[in-house]
């Protein structure tokens, strides 16, 4: 480590430390608190995450750093463990819940610095279909990637997808369908959005048990993924 090998020429004595040492101490403390945020987040300790986020702000750690190197870093690690089949979804979800609480505490500071979410996505299950779980999993995984999610629920008509995308300035619309007899309801959503002023600006993602890449292309959607984890990765790529 460079810091450890350097000799401070400005060392005085007693309890007085040089500017360099102050900086070194601050950097170490910042690293420590960010690691603590990440560790507590991975264990789903929401209250601890909130306290640590506030402590970090108090200590002058930039909000963007807290978000990227504390909260999102923690979610990245737990997400990686899920992909490696080391943990189950509940562990990821409690981590995501802790991240949301931490992000909420961070929000005013982020806003003050003009830092915005990675993007906004609208998510819903299409008209005539009440399946909720798959949609909720995708929502949680995307939130874990720092995307602001607008959940319009189940049995959602095409107009609600469009209205929500307009209202919240969404960059992505995610449509879920779990039945062979409701997957046809995805096309009206795609047609409505592509035919509106949002056409070409908003990307449409589709998923659900009967959905395939071929179906995605057939209805003119932009992206299909087979599960929640890959959906979150794909959303990040679409937002870049």
């Amino acid at each position: 480590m460079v810091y450890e090998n350097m000799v401070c020429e400005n060392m005085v004595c007693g309890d007085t430390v040089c500017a360099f040492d102050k900086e070194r101490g601050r950097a170490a403390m910042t690293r420590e608190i960010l690691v603590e945020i990440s560790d507590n987040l991975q264990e789903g300790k929401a209250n601890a995450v909130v306290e640590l986020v506030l402590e970090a702000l108090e200590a002058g750690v930039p909000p963007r750093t807290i978000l990227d190197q504390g909260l999102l870093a923690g979610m990245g690690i737990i997400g990686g463990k899920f992909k490696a089949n080391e943990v189950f979804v509940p562990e990821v979800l409690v981590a995501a819940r802790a991240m949301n609480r931490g992000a909420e505490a961070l929000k005013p500071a982020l806003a003050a610095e003009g830092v915005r979410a990675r993007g906004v996505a609208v998510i819903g299950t299409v008209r005539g279909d009440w399946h909720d779980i798959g949609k909720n999993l995708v929502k949680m995984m995307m939130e874990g990637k720092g995307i602001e999610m607008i959940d319009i629920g189940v049995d959602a008509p095409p107009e609600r997808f469009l209205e929500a995308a307009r209202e919240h300035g969404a960059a992505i619309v995610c449509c879920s369908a779990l039945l062979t007899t409701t997957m046809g309801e995805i096309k009206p959503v795609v047609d409505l959005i592509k035919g509106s002023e949002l056409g070409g600006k908003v990307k449409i993602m589709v998923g659900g048990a009967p959905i395939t890449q071929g179906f995605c292309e057939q209805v003119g959607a932009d992206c299909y993924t087979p599960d929640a984890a890959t959906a979150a990765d794909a959303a990040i790529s679409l937002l870049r």
Partner: protein
Amino acid sequence: MARRVFTQTAYQDLSDFVYGRALYPITLGNGMVIGGGTVYPEINFTLPPMIITEATMPEALGHYQEIADGICRRAGDLSVPGFVAEIELLPPMTFNPDWGTAVCETVVEAIRRGGEKYGVKGAVRLTPVDIREGRDLEHMWRGSHWEKILRVFRQGAGVGAEFLAIESVGGKEVHDEAVMYCDIAKSIFALGVLGCRDMERLWAAIDGVAGETGAIASGDTACGFANTAMVLADRNYIPKVFAATVRVLASARSLVAYENGAQGPHKDCGYEGVYIKAITGTPISMEGRSSACAHLSPVGNVAACLADLWSNESVQNIKLLGGMAPIVSFEQLAYDCRLMNTASARGGETALLLRDLHADSDSGLDPQAYVLRPDVALEIAKELVKVAGHYARTKKAAGLALDHMRKAVEQGRLWLRDKELAWLERLSETVAGLPADPGELTENMLGECEKLDPKKYDM
């Protein structure tokens, strides 16, 4: 019908507990006896991708007729001794009871014609979708959703459906979250409090329709609960030990149908049916390896151990190399049943050997298969049924399932990954800490269940 109370299992001896035979078989007018020694195929089917509207209903009915005609023809070709065709209506066909009735009538008529033409025997199980979900739902037991379900049952029985069944959803709005977080307390609340409370009202009403129409109130699967857990576990999203526990505690909920008039056969995707058969002695339908067309599972063989009907769960009417998918699926079921019935014809010992081979081939590899073993199911059922009260019974079911899995691991009869073992302990601790009083659990849960509207359950 007066409410029945089960305080002991119908079966005492494991050697009586086998596929094809139930203590209380069901005899139909055409001579089929379900649970009388023969396992029959129960074929289920659905439409290819299409939107159901008034304009497309003629096309939909054409599919159903084609499917039913094809099944009758193949049943004749393969000398199938009888079959049940299950019609699981799609949501628009329950929201529009006349459409659902038309589907039912189409299939009933096709089977009647098949009987004349090919000499085959068939029966229809009618399963409307439980549409009591969504923003427009007024109340679980009154209002248009409730009325439409009962109207489908009444009209369907009127045009000839022999069996009435449902996959009821009372408590599902809470369980959907419970399963995502593997929150066993919430799962027990959803199934043992909300689900049971709903089942009492629903099955009293279905039994009433059966009484009016001469149809048979058959059974209610916890599909939206336990099968959701099974599918998520299959994808490694949630622990298999959680899914196995939910399966066993779902039996306390599905039993409520039988306390309120159901006579069987229990519905195919309700794998908890093995517990229902142990307790009530009524026949059950099961599905396993031949339902992979609808969903994958870790219980392909063990599910056959106690089946009186053998089902494919569902398959779309699409073309495969061998023919249309429902006919292909029916043939697979027919051969499975033929093997089981041939083993039975050789004598009880051979049937028990086949039963045990089915059990042993799956049960060491997955806890969900382990809890379906006939010996395990009977042992758990004997303890479970001693407990009075729906919540207490459901809680007991969870504890028994977890204890049996733990012992099986210790004895080397079940293999679990380390991360599954950690969850086994975590779930056991939670169940042990649950209150004895359902009122106390309800009080705790009401603040936690955002999607639950207690007024819809008169709570």
